[in-house]
């Protein structure tokens, strides 16, 4: 049974982990999954549709929700989407995406850059 946690969610009213908006996005997924079980391509299309209206930054919330609901396929899918979103982008973009600031000492970051045996040119424009 894929959704043990969902039952718990509905029982547990005082729940901060999953907001309503997110729940509406995540929960219909397993039904669709069961319907299009073997057909990967159709599932992909469905997933693309779903995410078209979702801001990239909202993905982090979706991931938390999927994790809380113990929903492995959705978690897998959302993580993959995040990975695709930061693919071929600069380090600064990744920081902006996650809302982080660099907490490296100035010398450390330079050392890290030198550590890279490889570095990347031709990164997509942010």
């Amino acid at each position, binding site marked *: 049974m894929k959704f043990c946690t969902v039952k718990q969610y509905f029982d547990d009213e005082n729940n901060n982990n999953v907001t309503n908006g997110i729940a509406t996005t995540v929960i219909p997924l397993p039904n669709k999954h069961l319907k299009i079980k073997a057909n990967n391509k159709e599932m992909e299309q469905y997933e693309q549709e779903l995410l078209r209206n979702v801001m990239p930054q909202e993905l982090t919330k979706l991931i*938390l929700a999927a994790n809380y609901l113990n929903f492995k396929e959705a978690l897998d899918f959302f993580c993959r989407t995040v990975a695709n979103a930061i693919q071929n982008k600069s380090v600064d973009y990744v920081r902006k995406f996650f809302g982080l600031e660099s907490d490296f000492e100035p010398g450390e970051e330079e050392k890290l850059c030198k550590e890279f045996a490889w570095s990347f040119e*031709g990164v997509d424009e942010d």
Partner: protein
Amino acid sequence: MVILFVSEPPLIIYCGRIIDGEWIKLSYLGELNQSLHKAGENMLQNYSNERILDSSSRYITAIVIYKLDFDKLVWLKVESAKDRAFFLPFNFDNQSYNGFSCPASTEIEGNCVYFTLADGHKKLYSYNIEEGKLSISSPFPNLPTRKSSPIWVMPEAKHRINMEEQGSGKVQEKVNDLEDVEVANETKAHLPCLPLDMLKLIAKRLILVDYLHFRATCKMFHSVAPQIQWRIATPRLENPSLSPWLVLFGKESVYSFIDPNHGDKYLINLPQVLKEGSIIRGSKDGWLLVTVRMSTFFFNPFTQALLPLADRRAYIRNPCMGFSSTPDSSECVAVEIGDKTNNNSNFFVNLCSLGKEDWDLWEFEYTNFSFDCNSPVFYKGAFYYLGKEGNLGILKLNDEEHSFEVLTKPKPPCNDNFQKFLVECNGELLSIFVAPFEKGVRVFKLNESIMTWVRVENLGNYMLYVSHKSSMSAIAKSPGMENKIYFPRFYGESIVFYSLETDNYHSFKSKDVVDFYSTTEVLCCGWIEPRWC
């Protein structure tokens, strides 16, 4: 100060001050052509230009520019000269005299060497020093063909020297758009950050440099993403293509790699020993044969494995080098072939394997075979060379005595105006003849039973990658890549290929046929198959 070179190849130069009227003798090693530059009382840099060009060859394989440092009396390699342009005339012998350099201006683009070759002098070649790219344009279509060679003349009578110019042309600092990043951070609310195991799941899906960028974001991400060996993507993500990449070795301390499929560019720092002017001589299975002056190495840039060979002792002019198989196998042999002197009396074959103390130098009597500058193909246990006239020469390494056989059959399918390449594809020997400029490419297969070249119209699922240093074949891994020949030529930022289906040059960026004259050719490069293990 006036510089004068005395003999050819110039081994001694004199420099003199106009005021004193005294000539001071300097000396340096190497074959260099000089461009005379008259200066006033202020001493200026003097540029010299070395082009590696066989006297009967019709194309350029490398251009190197040196600057004479008068204080230390050494030649320093010039990587970029944004404030100067160089003009060289080549005469019928492709020797160059009386070139000059001038300051860059709005009309004359800096960082370039302009020249014409003895192929009618109708095409203007411009070589971008910093990028190492050669492009051809046709600005004088109505120039009459003459037997004499043209010279470049600068209309102004004097070269004016600016004291400020000496400081210019240095590295410009990149402007950091710090302001923009900060504004973006303020407007966007900070998101709840993901717990560590979520981050790990994301990091698991990142490949190649994305993983490195993830690591460099902040300390928390750094702890979540440990240093790993390169990960190949799972099939669902876009596959990094392991089809051959183009490796550029123009800069001294890094190699650049370009993936022709996606146009991605990677840089790699070289191990210390290769940092001073390495030249790639051949490539196979992810390994490169690299020389640094007389030292020779096998280098795998993906695993950073470096295997030294014995130093070469004989100096061979314009060598073509190659090796038989991956250095992992015990039978790997590196071979160097070429003339020792200007006179084509005999040619030399220099052989070495890993673990040997020295190179074996063999001398062969002059045969009717001129070596092109291409790396040989190791096919069926012997090294195959395609000569300038399009005939085949086979170097067989036997136990007692090595032999070099020039084959009379197969007859060359095209005349010698074509650039030629030899490559092995699917167990067969293919030859590729590239017509000058935009006129097209022809591929032939060797039919060994009747020893003739048979025209190949379609490569099927194969792709060919050609360059002077290494040529290889590969099976197309993604649709749209097959039946094409990839060249070390760029249209903007993407690689140019010749499609056998349309009989034209294209690039992945645009669907149309590419205008040959707006492409640039990279000189110091070769193709390499990425191998991470």
